[in-house]
């Protein structure tokens, strides 16, 4: 070789692909739980998303003049669409996921320079885009099996997603609001929070609602990821800790208006966000202290948006807002270097 290469000549054999694969594997329990509780809609959506991803990535890499090979298979786009797929209703029309993934990949990743250069979390960017552009479709969730009494099988889901109808069933029986949405609607209608929640607990499966089980599945996957050092522990602990703390304080203050901590932690996309979305290393803070501050910030913002904001689940916006603050956080949380005073 003409140019000298530098030491070290050893490596611990970690790679980007491996990291992404580990994240994907960690999401598997949650996926299975989701299929069990909500039907196969999510599988259809996921397949649609993968198809979109392949097409969009190829086109964008060609347009940007980058080599196709390592970038197509580095699995980072897979994480994005997995996150997005979990966020949308399983029975949403096909163009929702397609437009959402395309937007997320193009505007959230490639236009900023590809892997490693985007400031905003692409999945959350796509989700926010969908929330704002198609609010109706994004808030009509499929009811879990314990509520609707029937899970859609694969064909039925596909049929519904592509055509918007299922032969033999009416939509109203299958779709409804999420618990968070219910609480919100209840408050606006004058119902007490406790009443709404007790209403929900009537349909619990081993002590938790379906949503709760999905969240638990996410948590299991997340804990495994912490163990295998794929994600940093500061993210989930900071986020969940902050969320728990603030919801606890407010719940103590007025239980009738503010939901309890357990409700906060196990509904919506809390666990998904805690272990899979905010841990995206590219868009999160990099210093250890910074990670904690970032995660706590998201927790507080999620609570604020959920309670007083216009959207039932404010995770997307909370994350995007904290992404904006990341360079500032990084600047002021630099660790003390060996041998220096500060």
């Amino acid at each position, binding site marked *: 070789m003409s140019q000298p290469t*530098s030491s070290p000549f050893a490596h611990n054999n970690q790679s980007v692909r491996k990291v992404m694969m580990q994240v994907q594997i960690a999401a598997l329990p949650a996926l299975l739980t989701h299929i069990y509780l909500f039907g196969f809609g999510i599988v259809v959506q996921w397949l649609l998303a993968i198809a979109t991803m392949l097409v969009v990535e190829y086109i964008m890499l060609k347009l940007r003049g*980058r*080599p196709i090979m390592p970038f197509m298979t580095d699995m980072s786009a897979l994480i994005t669409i997995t996150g997005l797929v979990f966020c949308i209703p399983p029975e949403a029309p096909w163009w929702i996921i397609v437009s959402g993934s395309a937007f997320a990949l193009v505007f959230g990743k490639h236009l900023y320079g590809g892997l490693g250069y985007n400031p905003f979390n692409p999945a959350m960017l796509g989700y926010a885009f969908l929330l704002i552009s198609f609010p109706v479709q994004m808030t009509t969730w499929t009811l879990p099996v314990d509520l609707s009494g029937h899970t859609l099988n694969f064909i039925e889901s596909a049929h519904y997603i592509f055509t918007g109808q299922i032969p033999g069933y009416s939509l109203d029986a299958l779709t409804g609001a999420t618990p968070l949405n219910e609480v919100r609607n209840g408050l606006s209608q004058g119902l007490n929070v406790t009443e709404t929640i007790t209403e929900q607990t009537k349909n619990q499966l081993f002590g938790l609602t379906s949503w709760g089980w999905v969240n638990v599945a996410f948590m299991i996957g997340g804990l495994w990821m912490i163990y295998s050092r794929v994600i940093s522990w500061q993210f989930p602990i900071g986020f969940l800790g902050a969320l728990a703390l603030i919801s606890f304080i407010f719940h103590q203050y007025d239980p009738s208006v503010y939901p309890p901590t357990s409700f906060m932690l196990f509904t919506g996309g809390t666990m998904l966000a805690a272990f899979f979305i905010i841990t995206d290393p590219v868009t999160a803070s990099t210093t250890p202290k910074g990670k904690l501050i970032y995660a706590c910030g998201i927790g507080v913002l999620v609570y604020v948006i959920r309670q007083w904001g216009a959207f039932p689940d404010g995770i997307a916006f909370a994350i995007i807002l904290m992404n904006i603050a990341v360079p500032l956080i990084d600047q002021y949380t630099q660790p003390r270097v060996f041998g220096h005073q500060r």
Partner: protein
Amino acid sequence: MIEAILIFLGLAILFGLLLGYASIRFKVEGNPMSEQIDKILPQTQCGQCGFPGCKPYADALAEDKTEVNLCIPGGNEVMIQISEITGLEPKQMDETATETKTKETAYINEDLCIGCVLCIKECPVDAILGATKLMHTVIQQECTGCEKCVPVCPVDCIEMLPQHVTPKNWKWPEPVTIKEASK
């Protein structure tokens, strides 16, 4: 209606007074911009910008009498910095003659030197040692590579050569990125 007008008038007067006071109280003597620009110029005193040295060019720039893209040894980086300091538009450099970043210094071929002291008079940093009818030589440490001595030599004995690379001043090369590797 009348109150709005009065309020705005009052505010305008107040701010005008404040600004006037500030312009007198905090007036800066001299032209600090010239000093700032001079600091970033490469100080080769080569004259390729058309001015007899780096400080005159900086002074002219501070008075907005000349272009920002004239400093050839400084190259693009200095041009951008100058445009930032002066607030002028960055202009394209006329020639990218300084693509070769290796610093070259002057060497006098002692076999040909006739001791005419023309190069000594020309050197803007007094880097040539010598006297009439005696051998001239370039003090390598002081030579800035401005090439002013090369054309004045009547026997054409000065040439510009790049510096020797020794294990002492050898530099680690930058690693090749994926973008360049794929080209």
